């Protein structure tokens, strides 16, 4: 086991986003807050149908989770694609770290960034809203699983992409729609029946819904049942990353 190596890589991946923290931490938090302001005034005091909460309160946990997911993805995907484009990824391939050590280091840094961004976002809001916490365990499990899944997706996306263009294709045409259409901005009960069904096949729906449940105590699915789906999905993502790194998928010739 090369624990020091794993720790070093984790530190490098952390260092990378902390060095440009305006862009990686402050900017995403601000974007989320802007969404919140816009929807707050567009929707007024309207209640979410079928739930005992107003739209504004409903929106906050969802936005926090969406920000987490997008940042976890951005951390790993940008690291890999910058590495590939600048040809610095070869130093990682050369280093005596096993595939699982690599994946653990990358994912841990992605989770850390996700947690930092979400915390900053929530802290900024605390003076203005009454943030209740219904079940901290749910928040933790869903936040963690969500960041791992998206960090892993970022790794896979980065490995798959040849350049920044194909990378942005993945994030704009796959990741962005999936997160936007996952129930951040609406309860899926507001959707036509067909789309309610479709939503159940979107893993992000369970992530957002469960995370929100942790804050509000209400949601569209049973959060304890969905934990299984989400944890299974996280495990599958980690295993896929491990396997792909092991064979050097699209990294080695």
């Amino acid at each position, binding site marked *: 086991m090369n624990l020091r190596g794993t720790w070093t890589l984790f530190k490098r991946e952390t260092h990378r986003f902390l060095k440009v923290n305006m862009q990686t931490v402050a900017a995403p938090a601000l974007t989320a807050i802007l969404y919140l302001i816009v929807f707050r005034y567009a929707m007024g005091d309207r209640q979410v149908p079928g739930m005992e909460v107003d739209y504004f309160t409903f929106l906050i946990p969802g936005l926090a989770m969406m920000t987490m997911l997008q940042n976890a993805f951005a951390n790993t995907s940008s690291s890999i694609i910058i590495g590939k484009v600048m040809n610095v990824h070869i130093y990682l391939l050369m*280093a005596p770290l096993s595939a699982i050590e690599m994946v653990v280091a990358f994912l841990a840094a992605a989770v850390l960034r996700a947690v930092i961004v979400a915390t900053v976002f929530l802290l900024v809001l605390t003076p203005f809203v009454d943030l209740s916490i219904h079940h901290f365990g749910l928040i933790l499990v869903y936040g963690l699983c969500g960041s791992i899944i998206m960090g892993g997706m970022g790794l896979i996306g980065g490995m798959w992409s040849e350049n920044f263009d194909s990378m942005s294709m993945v994030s704009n045409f796959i990741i962005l729609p999936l997160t936007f259409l996952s129930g951040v901005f609406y309860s899926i009960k507001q959707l036509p029946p067909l789309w309610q069904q479709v939503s159940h096949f979107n893993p992000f729906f369970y992530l957002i819904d469960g995370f929100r449940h942790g804050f509000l105590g209400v949601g569209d699915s049973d959060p304890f049942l969905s934990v299984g789906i989400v944890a299974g999905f996280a495990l599958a993502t980690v295993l896929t990353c491990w396997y792909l790194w092991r064979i050097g998928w699209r990294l080695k010739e």
Partner: protein
Amino acid sequence: MTPTALSVNQLHKAYSNGKEALKGVSLSVPEGSFFALLGPNGAGKSTLINIMADTVVPTSGSIEFLGHDMFSERLWCKANIGVVPQEVAFDPFFTPREVLSMVCGLYGQKPDMKWINELLEHLELAEYADKNTRQLSGGMRRRLLVAQALVHRPPLVVLDEPTAGVDVKLRRRLWDYMRELNTSGTTILLTTHYLEEAEELCDHVAIIDRGSVITSSGMEKLLHEVAGSYLWLRYRDGWELGRADAEALSEFNPRMHEGKLCLTLNRMDLQQSTFHHAYESTVQRLGPPLDAGVCEEDLEDVFLRLTHEDTT
């Protein structure tokens, strides 16, 4: 017999585009040697090195490194090799000192600041140790790459054209440092296009061309046995060797080079009689030349002859 540091057996690599870069390369690098791997562009040198660095996956074959199978004991082997890749690239977020301590960490070692400072000093990077790598010149970046390959003190250092783009003075100093390292026991495998330097520095040499090893031996042995001498004769400007004359002199493998007629003499045959025989035969056939001389092949000539790059 000196133990072997690196033994490459029947290594094949075919890229996905169908290009066969290595066609069964076998090599043996003795422990403690300074080994030159030479070959024209596209010969397969970098592919071989990249396979050792684990950035290219071989199609078949094996490599044994200090008694360990490189492909089944990857992590051990990686931890004990330092590779200087051909392309220079750095993470734009770090300074040279940070890069070096980071590489140390990745190799599972606690950064040894004394050693890091020594490396920075030796490779003349101390002044830039805490500046961003983006501010370094091309030559400095290449030296940083060398430092990076040495920072975990590996017993084998592999350098893929480490002096490309480094000015003459610094190149000399870099070589001095490599020599020092070699003297202290590190095995060094290097590729370079500066053949006179390979001749000066290395004690072993292998020449590969189009994915196959053409020759591999001790440097002195190669220069002694493979390198030949030739006699050159210059006739009037624009003079060309006719076919009948070429046939008459065929035992000397006559060819035109830079307007001169060149005849091959084996170094073993470099006694007056042989030289005399060649000279006399030519003069008899073509008349006295305007000028003539004898040259001995150096590594570059051998290299060009063996890789068929000679323009004659």
